[in-house]
């Protein structure tokens, strides 16, 4: 009888929603994977001036920092970004190649519900996506019932990565044009 009760209690604990973060992939591993194991040196871009305005228009609020770090090789860049879903931050890894999303993955999910966004059936919608001149995604993303806020957060981060990648590309082009 005691074992039966214990088993029920254990099962009930497992069934209860957990507030612990679910880590699906470490950030370091995501970046390494993005560059086939040859992780480039980290760089940083300052979120100031015009970029700050564009970032805030994408997120709908001020960015939580003055700079964003990224990893880049050639025309590919990788970004690790956080955004609040309902109350907790969701950490996404995004790889942008030639101005379009090549890979996007939920790295850490901290909300009590809505983690279905991590599955390929949802995330694959972003592959190949770009942004227009008004920083909107160039496609519609189908939501998931019960995960609306997480879906919106993921979309904001996808747009943010594309905008930041554009900025990095413009900065690099400007630097190269000034080079003797």
């Amino acid at each position, binding site marked *: 009888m005691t074992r039966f009760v214990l088993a029920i209690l254990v099962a009930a604990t497992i069934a209860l929603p957990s507030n612990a*973060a679910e880590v699906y992939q*470490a*950030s*370091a591993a*995501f*970046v390494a994977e993005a560059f086939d194991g040859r992780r480039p*040196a*980290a*760089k*940083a871009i300052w979120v100031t001036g015009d970029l700050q305005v564009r970032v805030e228009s994408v997120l709908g609020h001020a960015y*939580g*920092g*003055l*700079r964003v*770090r990224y*990893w880049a090789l050639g025309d590919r860049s990788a970004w*690790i970004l956080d955004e609040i879903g309902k109350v*907790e*931050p969701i*950490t996404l890894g995004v790889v942008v190649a030639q101005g379009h999303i090549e890979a996007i993955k939920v790295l850490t999910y901290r909300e009590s519900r809505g983690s279905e966004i991590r599955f390929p059936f949802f995330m694959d919608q972003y592959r190949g996506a770009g942004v227009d001149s008004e920083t909107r995604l160039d496609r519609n993303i189908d939501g998931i019932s019960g995960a609306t806020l997480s879906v919106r957060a993921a979309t904001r981060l996808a747009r943010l990565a594309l905008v930041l990648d554009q900025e990095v590309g413009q900065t690099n082009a400007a630097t190269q044009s000034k080079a003797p």
Partner: protein
Amino acid sequence: MQRLNLKLRRSLAAIHHFLGQAAAAIVVILASTGIAMNHEDDIDYLKGSVRWEPLLDWYGVAPKGDLIQFTSDGHSGASLERGIYLDGRYLTATESPLVGVVRFQRFLALAARDRLWLVDPAPSLTAEPVRILDQLDSASLPVPLTRLGRSRNEELVVGTGSGDYKTDADLLNWEPAGSVAVTWSTASPASEELRKAVLREFRGDGLPRKRVLADLHSGRIIGGRGPWLIDAFAVILLLLAVTGLVSAGLGRGRRNRS
């Protein structure tokens, strides 16, 4: 028969009095909370929050675990549950406690097991909130971190299970620290004033008054068994009604006969 009726009436009256007294306090609570709930959208007072600490303690709005504090350059960095607090004000969320706080250039660096934040603490005289300038996660740190320090050359140094690492001035790259002399950040006891400030921040806005009202009305305020107790008093009220009606009916019958 008349004697039987009289006895019955007296018994019912006694039961009625007893139950009435027992239920009086609950009736007052139920009636007053019920009226308030009927008009809660019109009562401005109910749109606020309760921050009375004994009540928040009762509701379990209390942190689990200890407050861990580090000080540097006149500033206090503390972690409590899943929050980081700078000078007693909430800064950001964390999944692990702080392992150190040190001054870095003119900023403060705060480190947990797998995150490091660079903040501009800003002068306390301004109203501007503390600004997080940068944050590093496992992709940018040699995690897991066990301690944070600063070398004599003003380099930021982190301790990990596999050795100590120092970073460049841009916080972009890390390399083994070698035998550089490091002053490590160490935890210190927090003052009572800081503890209270952090607890206030942790508790945030407190409990909505509507929530407390609803819990009073339903009995949930005393825990899981509360609604059952309210149900039991509802049964008592039913018995009150029944005994009162029966007693009144018997009394009317007696008057009619006489």
